[in-house]
């Protein structure tokens, strides 16, 4: 293959990775923005949601329909995590690091608990990849194009939610200044719960399309995904949904293109280096601004 075609085909992979990562990072960063929880258990919720969707798919349900089950699982599990795990720990006024460590524990329990249930083997969705399309030197299957379309539509909906709806504005207000939001009559507890439902649905969706896009997956497949999430989030500025989209695009493309030239094994390393560089030179991200007052 020529240099250009290697580049363009890896660009295609990068686009897929970026699209899935964008959905995941937006959910991840929304949780951080509105509740100040760095939910390190995000990857395990993703893969658990994927397995629930897979469960229905393996019993004959159309794979695209099972996305709904993945989303519902992600939403309910995330909401419950916040309600019964993170909030009680936050209420006790412990150091913020406590919640991070708790989330890490939840991630391990979630991942290996799943492994105990489903076993260690690889599975894959029953989903025809469809015709292969050759677009600008990229090779994308029909399935991948559908995933891209879903991601684009969902990101568009998130944009609409945050920018034009009462709920979305209340979410942004709660994120910016929770006390003032309450002084304005916003029931911030409700807003926070709703945020976890919505971001959890994004998490479940991301997990399921991640599993579909990967082809074969197992209980631990999303274990290193948190590195990609953190890199994308910090690149765009923590708590900035639009920054998350940008960060995901950058990290998605960077990891896949570097994979074509170095080795796919080093994807997370590349993401991690990007994260380190970002933390060193612009800890508030490209779009983020230092929250001072």
């Amino acid at each position: 293959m020529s240099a250009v075609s290697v580049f363009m085909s890896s660009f295609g992979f990068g686009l897929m990775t970026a699209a899935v990562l964008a959905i995941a990072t937006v959910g991840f960063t929304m949780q951080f923005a509105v509740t100040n929880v760095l939910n390190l258990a995000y990857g395990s919720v993703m893969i658990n949601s994927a397995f629930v969707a897979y469960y229905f798919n393996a019993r004959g349900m159309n794979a695209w329909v099972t996305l709904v089950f993945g989303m519902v699982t992600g939403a309910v599990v995330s909401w419950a995590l916040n309600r019964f795990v993170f909030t009680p720990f936050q209420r006790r006024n412990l150091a913020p690091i406590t919640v991070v460590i708790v989330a890490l524990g939840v991630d391990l329990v979630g991942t290996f608990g799943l492994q105990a249930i489903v076993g260690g083997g690889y599975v894959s969705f029953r989903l025809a990849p469809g015709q292969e399309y050759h677009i600008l030197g990229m090779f994308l299957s029909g399935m991948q194009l559908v995933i891209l379309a879903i991601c684009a539509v969902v990101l568009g909906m998130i944009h609409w939610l945050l920018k034009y709806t009462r709920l979305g504005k209340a979410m942004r207000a709660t994120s910016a200044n929770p006390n003032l939001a309450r002084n304005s009559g916003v029931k911030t507890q409700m807003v926070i719960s709703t945020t976890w439902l919505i971001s959890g649905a994004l998490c479940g969706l991301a997990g399921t399309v991640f599993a579909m896009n990967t082809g074969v997956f197992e209980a631990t497949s999303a274990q290193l995904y948190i590195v990609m999430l953190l890199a994308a989030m910090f690149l765009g500025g923590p708590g900035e949904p639009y920054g998350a989209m940008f960060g995901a695009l950058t990290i998605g493309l960077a990891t896949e293109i570097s994979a074509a030239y170095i080795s796919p094994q080093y994807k997370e390393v590349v993401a991690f280096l990007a994260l380190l560089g970002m933390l060193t030179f612009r800890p508030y991200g490209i779009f983020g601004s230092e929250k001072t007052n």
Partner: protein
Amino acid sequence: MSVELSQSGQVLTATGLSAGYDGRPIVQDVNIEATPGKVVSIVGPNGSGKSTLLKSLVGVVPVLGGTVSVGAKDITNMTPEKVAALGVGYVPQIDDVFPPLTVKENLEIGGYLLARRDVATRIEAVLEFFPRLKVMLTRKAGKLSGGERKMLAMGRVLMLSPSVLVLDEPTANLAPIVATQLLEEYIRGFADHGSTVLLVEQRAKAALRISDWTCVLGGGRVVLEGAPRDLEQDPVFVESFLGGGTARHQAP
């Protein structure tokens, strides 16, 4: 200024109020009554508990003893969102806007409790009041100047047509002319329209000029209070707050 922005209305009362953080009282045994049509101001040195007092009235800081009421309603330790719904508008000393939101969005959040169809007309009314905000509706609140920002902060609470205004140093960091205008035109104006105004003001002289009653807070307690013309005659007050107009000492 023909627009009716604030509603006339309700008495705000604190009785034997103690409040503070982590169960430790900062404000102790404070009695305050703010009535419709009047400006009641609170002055006092830095750290005397002025902000803590206001926060405890609006549900941001826990009340540890005593009661707070609006009209006939006991609002002691009520959540801030319920206090807002009862017509009490609170402008904090700092963090008084949502910086990443635009001016328009800040006003929309201010009108969060309004019926959806009323928000736009209400924004129009508030903008008539603060015309300077009109040309910056799409600007982020974090990018406003100090004076514009205070107008936005006031505009946000006016969205709900409050009957009681609780204002924590609205003139801090403002140029003297802007500060005077804010106090004498706008804030005094609310009271003249029948609203209840409770105001914390650093500059005692300016506070006295627009107030009907002034309380001096020291060490979390009301150490002196009275009508402005009486306080102006009070040697202790004059020495502590009006003497030379520069240094502000702890009232004895």
